């Protein structure tokens, strides 16, 4: 970095590959007034649990938290659409003064009667955490009254950052899958953790696995249901994509149910192929391995020329990346190389130390690596590094466009899959469409 940052405390969270040896600071609280791109505990919990299709998601708090999260994610369902509603206790001033437990109980009753769900999540918000409503007790009573599962999610916004919300979601999921009777017999099936079936991505992976001779047991949480999640202990292996949100769940399932886990990523040809091979190897079955090789060979052959076609005009362009979690960022470095591009700036909202170590070792010299960046830092390093394109979410998009550079949506709202071989083609096509659009001739 040539000039000092306006906010000195941010210096530790930014590194340049090849220049500074000290470790990057991450996984810490955001700095007040820094305009962090992160959301809150509730947001982290809601993102992870929302794709559970047949659940009622009831937000216990004032209206905003439910309003801003209503049906904004692109998770697809093969069954119930109940999860696409946003329910709220819409707490008012008098509820905050006198307590909101009674209103919460009434809301649960009404929803249980109207929708007859088998599963309900009750999210706590900032206010609830302060006024001390005992949502666990209310949920327990409601469970008995309605004979359904009502799971409290401890997601008061101030109690940590988005990562704490992931943890709260994992705690809720663990409550769900807790088997009360005999321990479930393990099968040859596997669970898939950390795919939210955005634009059907989990379906793409399920098809690959099926072709390899591997059956998916439960997916956390894309296109899942109460029944499918409860079957989770019957798996022999957990594969985990979004490690940022799911590592705790994977560790607990290993501890409690003896299910080992491994990290995978289905972003890009390289990581998809490697992940499929590693799954086959972990299952230690010759037939599965052979089928896997045939699948990879066929799929890569089909898309190679397509990707090559995009590579020519994209060769030498520079990308900046700022996404939510670490696995995406790491894969994107490799995926951009597949289309002939280098990443010159990369960061995440909630990446962990090992994610940043991977980014550091993969990135080329001079790449700026940053954690919990804000708009002014993104602006500065995009310009300084000469990036032609930014990868990010809804908040980052207008910044890229105002800076006059291209943009790739890599968030939970997208409507086309970016996973697997099909996703690799979509990715290349999207990069091409934004970098080679004629509009840039006019700005």
């Amino acid at each position, binding site marked *: 970095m040539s000039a000092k940052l*306006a*906010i000195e405390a941010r210096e530790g969270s930014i590194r340049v590959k090849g220049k500074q040896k000290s470790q990057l600071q991450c996984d810490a*609280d955001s*700095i*007040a*007034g*820094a*305009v*962090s*791109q*992160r*959301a*809150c*505990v509730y*947001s982290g919990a809601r993102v992870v649990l929302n794709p559970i299709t047949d659940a009622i998601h009831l937000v216990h*708090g*004032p*209206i*905003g*938290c*439910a*309003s*801003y999260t*209503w*049906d*904004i994610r692109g998770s697809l369902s093969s069954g119930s659409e109940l999860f696409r509603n*946003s*329910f*709220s*206790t*819409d707490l*008012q*001033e008098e509820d*905050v003064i006198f307590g909101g437990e009674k*209103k919460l109980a*009434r*809301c649960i009753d*009404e*929803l249980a*009667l109207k929708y007859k769900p088998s599963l309900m999540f009750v999210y706590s918000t*900032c*206010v609830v955490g*302060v*006024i001390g409503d005992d949502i666990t007790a209310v949920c327990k009573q409601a469970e008995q009254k309605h004979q359904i599962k009502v799971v409290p999610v401890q997601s008061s*916004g*101030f*109690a940590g*950052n988005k990562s704490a919300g992931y943890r709260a979601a994992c705690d809720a999921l663990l409550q769900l899958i807790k088997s009360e009777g005999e321990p479930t017999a393990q099968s040859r099936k596997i669970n898939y953790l950390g795919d939210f079936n955005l634009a059907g991505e989990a379906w793409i992976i399920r098809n690959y696995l099926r072709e390899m001779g591997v059956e998916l047991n439960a997916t956390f949480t894309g296109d899942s249901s109460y029944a499918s999640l409860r079957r989770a202990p019957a798996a022999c292996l957990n594969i985990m994509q979004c490690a940022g949100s799911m590592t705790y769940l994977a560790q607990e399932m290993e501890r409690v149910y003896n299910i080992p886990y491994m990290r995978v990523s289905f972003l890009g040809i390289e990581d998809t192929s490697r992940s499929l091979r590693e799954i086959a190897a972990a299952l230690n079955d010759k037939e599965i391995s052979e089928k896997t090789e045939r699948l990879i060979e066929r799929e890569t052959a089909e898309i190679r020329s397509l990707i090559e076609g995009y590579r020519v005009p994209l060769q030498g362009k520079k990308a900046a990346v700022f996404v939510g979690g670490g696995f995406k960022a790491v894969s994107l470095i490799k995926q951009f190389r597949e289309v002939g591009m280098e990443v010159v700036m990369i960061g995440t909202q909630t990446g962990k130390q090992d994610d940043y170590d991977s980014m550091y070792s993969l990135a080329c010299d001079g790449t700026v690596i940053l954690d919990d960046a*804000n*708009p*002014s830092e993104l*602006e500065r390093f995009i310009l300084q590094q000469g990036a032609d394109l930014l990868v990010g979410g*809804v*908040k980052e*998009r*207008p910044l890229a*466009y*105002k800076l*006059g550079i291209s943009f790739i949506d890599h968030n939970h709202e997208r409507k086309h899959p970016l996973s697997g071989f099909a996703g690799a083609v979509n990715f290349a096509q999207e990069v091409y469409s934004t970098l080679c659009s004629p509009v840039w001739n006019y*700005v």
Partner: protein
Amino acid sequence: MEKQTLSYRSVTENPCKMCMPMGGILAFKGVERSMVLLHGSQGCSTYMRRHIAEHFNEPIDVGSSSLNEKGTIYGGEKNLRQGLDNLIKVYNPSLIGVLTTCLAETIGEDIDRVASAYLQERGQEEFPIVTVSSPGYGGSEFEGYWMTLTRIVTKLAQKVEKHNKVNIIVPFISPADIRELKRILQLMKIEYTLLPDFSDTLDQPFARPYKRIPDGGTKLRDIARMSGAPGTIQLGVCVAEGISPGKYLEDTFGVPLYNLPIPMGIENTDRLVNVLQEFSGRATPKSLLQERGRLLDAMIDSHKYNFQGRSVIFGEPELVYAVTKTCLENGVFPVVVSSGSKNAKLPELLKAQLEQVPQQMHFLNGGDFAGILAKSEGANIAIGSSEGKYLSEKAGMPLVRIGFPIHDRVGGQRLLSVGYTGTAMFLDRITNTLLEHKLANYRHNVYEKFYPGTKTVTEG
């Protein structure tokens, strides 16, 4: 029994409103070189930034004091001060708005005291920090917006000599609507101070170099002089007196208040033009009369198509009132009128109007989308924000998008709906949506209704 459980619900199912700080941010966005700091946990600012950015396709930078557990237990003063420091360092704003959130209000933060102590210690007592108490549970974005405007005017307006610039205070309409109002004011040769003016800040032309705080917004020195205006035209008939900036200016500085509805529809636009004429003392320019004539012409051209429309109107009370009035003028009679937040003035305003409706009509004061859907039988067009896509999905009702947010289409900032010309464009959107729906279905519908009968006759 069934009826009882349906008529009163505790739970909100798919909200048709947002929270107070949202309105506060939007109001501050119309003030020159301003920045906002939300005093609360990090999520509030991020969610609201996302919500606004997706509608306007503009970078929306809003600070947060990022309260964590420690700040919640021991008080958030340190975070608030650090937040102010950092916002000033990075953005160098001319004004900072501090909005509280649920969290800050519940733990009892005294933002006024912190802000003045902060400025005093730095010897910057002149720097305007406008504090607004806006807990999410205290009201919706509508109240947050108007309360913030009142706080801005209260903070900045000084006793000044009388001058000739008329105050124009606008609700949360589109940037295109604001530009249209300014054009009309210019046509009428009226000098004005328009607050809040987000016509540029939330719809910024592409230009290099990038500016972290976009150009535009009502100038601070103009707001300071609103107290000397010959009058205030406030487009806010649904605004309660306690949060009415126009009322404040009238009570404190004796500036006469003309509280008018959003100029949508013939009658409401006439009302604005008549008041403007009072101020200008000149006849209405011919070109504006031509626009009025063209609107009448469009209303006649489309009246039979429009009479087929039965509408569901939802959203912020001020917009709901204007849209309802426009629909009534054109025979697009409402089946449901629903204000997202509970509003004390709207029922009275609508009462006489809605007596014209020839069929059964439901008014929901503070309705959610489940409630709207339950009452919408017989309606064939929904009018409001993109959240109304729920009605399209559930009941096949086409949606004419207006207001905020519009997340599933581009161009919310460019939607023009005010004045004679804007009304004509808004009406065209309604008529064309009805036509599109009719043309897509009439062959099939007529076939289904009559053809099977002819078959029986010939075959029988």
